[in-house]
């Protein structure tokens, strides 16, 4: 029953959607790439039949929309067939971006938690800090990213750090918002209880506010790690970076290598999914240790 329901409840619906998406994708491949083939045929002074055109739309070198099998061939070629230290390996580029993502995420989470603690414990901080935190996120990251890179470069910081800082800039926000809510989530009665014990604010924090905020923390960390990756990729775009998923995207668009772009996009999506799964796993592990219902 267990296996059968896994097939019926998980594999079947997800598989159906996947098959449908791939089918739609192939339809668009034919539709979008056909004009180029007709053009080519016209230049050669002839016309092209549909049955002749069909396979050609799926085998172009620089298609408007590459076919799924082209993208996966590229993915296979650049992950399995290349040494991971090679500059042509997508794993190498993914690692460059991932390291900036993880560094930025760690800094963003730490900054977010510290700001939330300050905001919850200090009225003046609550009044003065929160508007700035919100304002920081209204500035488009694409506008501010090049300036961060340039300014940091001018003071001699380059390489991993500027990208990580852009990740930090994006990822601290959901952590602040989530943790302020989480640290304020204990009910009045639970706080009163601490008061009757004459507990210090440090004791109230570690024994009540912090454990009560855990569900909020992990929910915001899931958002934070995904946008950390976005931040790292965006950070690679204006630098003319030579390595990283962002660099692959940029190089691909310069040279019209759509297959390479799509392969990099899929790699980024896979990395993001992996990161969110890891945080989700940590989430359920912590909640389980805190006695949550199975």
């Amino acid at each position, binding site marked *: 029953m267990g296996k059968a329901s896994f097939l019926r409840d998980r594999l079947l619906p997800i598989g159906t959607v996947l098959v449908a998406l791939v089918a739609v994708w192939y339809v668009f491949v034919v539709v979008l790439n056909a004009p180029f083939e007709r053009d080519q045929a016209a230049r050669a002074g002839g016309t092209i039949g549909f049955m002749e055109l069909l396979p050609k739309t799926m085998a172009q070198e620089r298609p408007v929309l590459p076919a799924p099998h082209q993208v996966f061939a590229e993915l296979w070629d650049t992950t399995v067939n290349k040494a991971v230290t090679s500059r042509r390996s997508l794993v190498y580029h993914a690692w460059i971006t991932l390291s900036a993502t993880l560094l930025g995420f760690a800094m963003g989470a730490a900054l977010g938690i510290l700001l939330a603690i300050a905001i919850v414990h200090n009225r003046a901080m609550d009044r003065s800090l929160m508007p700035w935190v919100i304002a920081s996120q209204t500035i488009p990251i694409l506008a501010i990213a090049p300036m961060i890179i340039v300014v940091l470069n001018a003071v001699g910081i380059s390489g991993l750090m500027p990208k990580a800082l852009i990740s930090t800039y994006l990822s601290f926000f959901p952590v602040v918002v989530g943790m302020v809510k989480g640290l304020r989530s204990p*009910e009045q*009665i*639970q706080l*009163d*209880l*601490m*008061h*009757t*014990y*004459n*507990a210090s604010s440090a*004791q109230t924090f570690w*024994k*009540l506010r912090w*454990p*009560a905020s*855990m569900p909020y923390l992990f929910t915001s960390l899931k958002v934070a790690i995904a946008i950390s990756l976005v931040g790292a990729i965006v950070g690679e775009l204006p630098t003319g970076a030579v390595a990283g998923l962002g660099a692959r995207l940029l190089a691909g668009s310069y040279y019209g290598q759509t297959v390479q772009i799509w392969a990099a996009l899929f790699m980024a999506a896979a990395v993001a999914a992996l990161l969110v799964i890891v945080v989700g796993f940590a989430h359920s592990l912590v909640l389980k240790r*805190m*006695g*949550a*219902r199975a």
Partner: protein
Amino acid sequence: MTAMSHATAASTVVSAKSLGLTFQTADGPVTALTGVDLSVEKGDFVSFIGPSGCGKTTFLRVIADLERPTSGTITVNGMTPEEARRRRAYGYVFQAAALYPWRTIEKNIALPLEIMGYSKADQKARIERTLDLVNLSGFGKKYPWQLSGGMQQRASIARALAFDADLLLMDEPFGALDEIVRDHLNEQLLKLWAATRKTICFVTHSIPEAVYLSTKIVVMSPRPGRVTDVIESPLPKERPLGIRETPQFLEIAHRVREGLRAGHSYEEHA
């Protein structure tokens, strides 16, 4: 210190003189308590009964230093409520069990002990003893959600008993429970009171509960919150549940009901 004043300090646990508390709200001042004169002696079981808004919970919160009075004086163990709270003079049982869901029952009972710095070995001994007192032995490793409402409230009583406070403040602890569970817990509470010799202040709005449990019943009425009657119960200390059908019991219950009615008619004329 004279022998006289020492004797007073030793036997009077709570002493309030013309105590008043006015909350400042957006709709103007609300008088929650006015002119409350009351003393609670060591070993008393005092019930506070009255309709909602009569200030019975507020009075308990004043004893606990969770609210500050705006007039009059109050002492707890001969100190201000704040000093008494700092010396951990009382255990407080809230309307809801307020157990921390991420802690097991024994860890919940350990919470005040951790905060007050009891040793690990002492914590263990106290957890075992108090779990036994509230008949929850063997449930220490369970999480709160695995227990019924009555068991959760018993665990919260165990938590209040775990440290050495001689005063137990209980704010409608069984208010959310059904009557069958409530009868059972009332009986257990009396046994616990006899076994621990604590002083108990107990807020309720159930007349049978107040009469069954108390050595002293404080009848209160609302708007403004004040004491309308203080009844010293003549019932014996040993009280089987059947005592609630005796004429003596019904007589006290009648007097409580009369006191409550008097408070209400005042309100209707106003």
